[in-house]
């Protein structure tokens, strides 16, 4: 993979000239021959040294887009050059470090590099050459810790789900934000006012949106049972489609397919603040008695929650967006904090399989706590390998 060749014309020339006249004979020794031999030996030596001094090698366990270039030359400043497709050299690094990683390369192509080491005393520079080919491998080794932890959590989830299937019962602690859901629906029914459900501002590619739709399914069923109108404005068409499916199914389950009104689940606009402007309008005009903001929210969280507050609605919110939680906590009646949003479907459905998978998350939490404590102890003890193993994946 790596190769090196020292070409130093100045040195080569000085060697030649040092041996004087090419045809000089001294005590029967053909000096020219000697010079050639010495020069040859020096060349091999230089070659060996050079391969040691300047190396280019494929970065192992990667996607074949990087080469590691290293050099061991005593110089304050070196220039590293790379040949482009036409063979012209361009400097890619200048400085005093002793290695460089060239990235964004194409796998299986050969790349040529040249290292220039200036020699101010001679007013020239030495040049080293090397080339290599980046290759794709079949596993990212630095992701090992990451694979293992993912496997551990997944296996735990599967194990507990399996346990649940065999009839094991799992406990789940109270989540007040979810207990209050019936109360909120009840109040809306009493007042004869609708319920507003906002499934967040992310598309279906966010798991929070899907978690939100799961809660919507339970909520819609309750709303159907109580004959309370349910309004669901959506920011994305795909969320709209999925929401309609979910709500329709819920009304069907509640035995009231005729009460389902598709026009109550509608699209507003793909725009973040346009969407919020629309919801604000709905809140002040329809005066829903209960608002649910569940899913992924960004800056608009407070606009929604404060407008909702001013209309006197009972408000339940939930998001895993840590930066928005303060605003929900401050201006809503109930807030599902972070993971509680994902626990909701298990909590509401009491489906043993879902409860089992929740137990799996909890196993993950214990694992995390143990790892953190172990990691801290190892760091205090000065044994950094443990942390480095986890850090590998964070690259």
């Amino acid at each position, binding site marked *: 993979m790596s190769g090196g060749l020292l070409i130093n014309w100045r040195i080569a020339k000085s060697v030649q000239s040092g041996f004087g006249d090419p045809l000089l004979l001294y005590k029967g020794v053909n000096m020219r021959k000697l010079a050639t031999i010495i020069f040859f030996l020096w060349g091999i030596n230089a070659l060996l040294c050079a391969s040691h001094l300047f190396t280019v090698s494929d970065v192992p366990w990667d996607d074949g887009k990087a080469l590691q270039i290293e050099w061991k030359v005593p110089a304050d400043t070196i220039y590293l050059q790379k040949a482009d497709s036409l063979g012209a050299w361009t400097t890619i690094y200048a400085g005093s470090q002793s290695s460089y990683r060239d990235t964004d390369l194409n796998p299986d192509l050969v790349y040529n590099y040249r290292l220039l080491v200036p020699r101010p005393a001679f007013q020239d520079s030495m040049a080293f050459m090397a080339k290599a080919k980046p290759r794709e491998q079949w596993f990212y080794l630095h992701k090992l810790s990451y694979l293992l932890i993912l496997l551990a959590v997944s296996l735990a989830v599967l194990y507990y789900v399996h346990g649940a299937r065999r009839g094991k019962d799992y406990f789940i602690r109270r989540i007040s934000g979810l207990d209050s859901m019936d109360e909120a629906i009840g109040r809306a029914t009493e007042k004869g006012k609708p319920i507003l459900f906002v499934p967040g501002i992310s598309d279906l590619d966010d798991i929070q949106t899907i978690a939100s739709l799961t809660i919507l399914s339970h909520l819609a069923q309750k709303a159907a049972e109580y004959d309370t109108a349910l309004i669901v404005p959506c920011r994305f068409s795909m969320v709209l489609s999925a929401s309609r*499916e979910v709500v329709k199914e819920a009304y069907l389950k509640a035995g009231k397919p005729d009460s389902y009104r598709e026009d109550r689940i509608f699209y507003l606009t793909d725009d973040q603040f346009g969407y919020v402007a629309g919801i604000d309008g709905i809140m002040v005009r329809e005066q829903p008695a209960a608002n649910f903001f569940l899913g992924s929210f960004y800056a608009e969280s407070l606009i929604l929650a404060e407008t909702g507050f001013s209309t006197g609605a009972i408000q339940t919110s939930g998001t895993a967006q840590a930066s928005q939680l303060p605003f929900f906590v401050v201006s809503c009646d109930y807030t599902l904090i972070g993971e509680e949003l994902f626990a909701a479907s298990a909590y509401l459905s009491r489906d043993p399989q879902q409860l089992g998978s929740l137990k799996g998350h909890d196993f993950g939490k214990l694992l995390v706590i143990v790892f953190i404590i172990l990691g801290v102890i190892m760091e205090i003890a000065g044994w950094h390998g443990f942390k480095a193993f986890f*850090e590998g994946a964070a690259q």
Partner: protein
Amino acid sequence: MSFFATFGLWMAVFFTLSIFSFLYKDNPFYKFAEQVFVGLSAAYWLVYLFYSIMLPNLFNKLLSDFSGNLILLVPAALGLMMLIRLIPKAQWVSRYPIAILIGTSAGINMVRYAKSDLLSQISATMINPFSASNLSGIIGNFLLIIGTVCGVYFFYFSKKQDGFSTVPSKLGIWFLMVSFGASFGYTVMARISLLIGRLEFLLKDWLHIIK
């Protein structure tokens, strides 16, 4: 200033004030601004999506090199299947693309969060608390470790919180509360900046009161 620039300025001022009027109460100006906003922005994203995503990623590629980009027919077909929803009888067809998208999202989210939010946060918490140069740093490091561990424990669902186990859970809530207060306070400045930006527009560009 040209007529259209002046007109545009007044239009911008009108919309700005209409939105602000919502703070007092809902009124026809806000209703108008709201509906215009919804309409404009919906069309804006449609146009944006068409020029920036559909043209370069799909149509242009298919038009310039159809046989080389045959694979793109798959998402195109799935996209059309989404549109079949418009026919009430065939709405179920859209479940195929939705299922593929959700499957993909689930896979991507699983690996992304495991990496960026789980592993990197765990390893960032593995610190030697005594490595800080001063006492407040050492105390801070301890708070960081204890807070993270107790906070994670707060979310432990499958155990009754009684006896000793309430202690870390309680601590966890305290840390959450401190964090919520702090983030709230920290955000005030960014939010006031937004208002300053709008006022600058009104006072500078429109009224020329400030330079």
